[in-house]
């Protein structure tokens, strides 16, 4: 659950700081969010395709 929800929370915080004009905080949280996203996506990329046996 955490790996799915965490990118949203970090992304939301990044958007909030972006709205405030605090770019450094926004970009840092954006990077964190993208990294967690990558971990979450990696778990799915290894799953078998519909054509796999």
């Amino acid at each position, binding site marked *: 659950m955490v790996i799915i929800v965490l990118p949203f929370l970090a*992304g939301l915080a990044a958007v909030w700081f972006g709205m405030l004009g605090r770019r450094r905080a926004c970009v840092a949280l954006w990077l964190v969010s993208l990294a967690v996203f990558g971990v979450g996506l990696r778990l799915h990329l290894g799953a078998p395709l519909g054509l796999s046996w």
Partner: protein
Amino acid sequence: MMFSANPARGSRAVNAVVLLGVSLFLGLALFRQFVQGEPACPLCLLQRAALVLAGAGLLLNLRLGPSPLHYGMTIAAALAGMAAAGRQMLRHIAPDDPGHGALLGGLHFYTWTFMACAALIAFCALMLCMDRKWGDSAIKRRVPAAGAAVMALFFLASLGSVGGAFAQCEGGACGMRAVGAPDAPGQDGARAG
């Protein structure tokens, strides 16, 4: 240089329009989840997260002025979104596989997401060619009311996406133990929709 005469207004207006489109797209995804009752699979949630991250770059363009860094953020997030959407498309590529969820305009929502991410990348590439960097600084610019409204709408869409992820995960539909199982109920398998 298309926007060199008035770099602040034209470029930021275009970014605001695209950000509005991203917000509406996220809103549509939430509408399908909460109003139409279509369950959001883990890959669908990841695609939404990618759109939120892509929108963050556009939002920075709107708030601080256009910068290659901001466009780069949008491109990277859109590529991540394309990877997630493309993975889901491949997952349902087998003949007789109904795919996940109801069709929208003859296509599944993840196909629309794939195309939206591709369009975002094309947009950023175009803007990087035409748009002139007008100060790659973190100095805040004054945002007109319409721009502020778009930013607020995007924030609400992002907040709704967090709620959507929590709502989906509450039922255990995004647990990682079953991620590798293509047909597990509640995953992005064909039986989930």
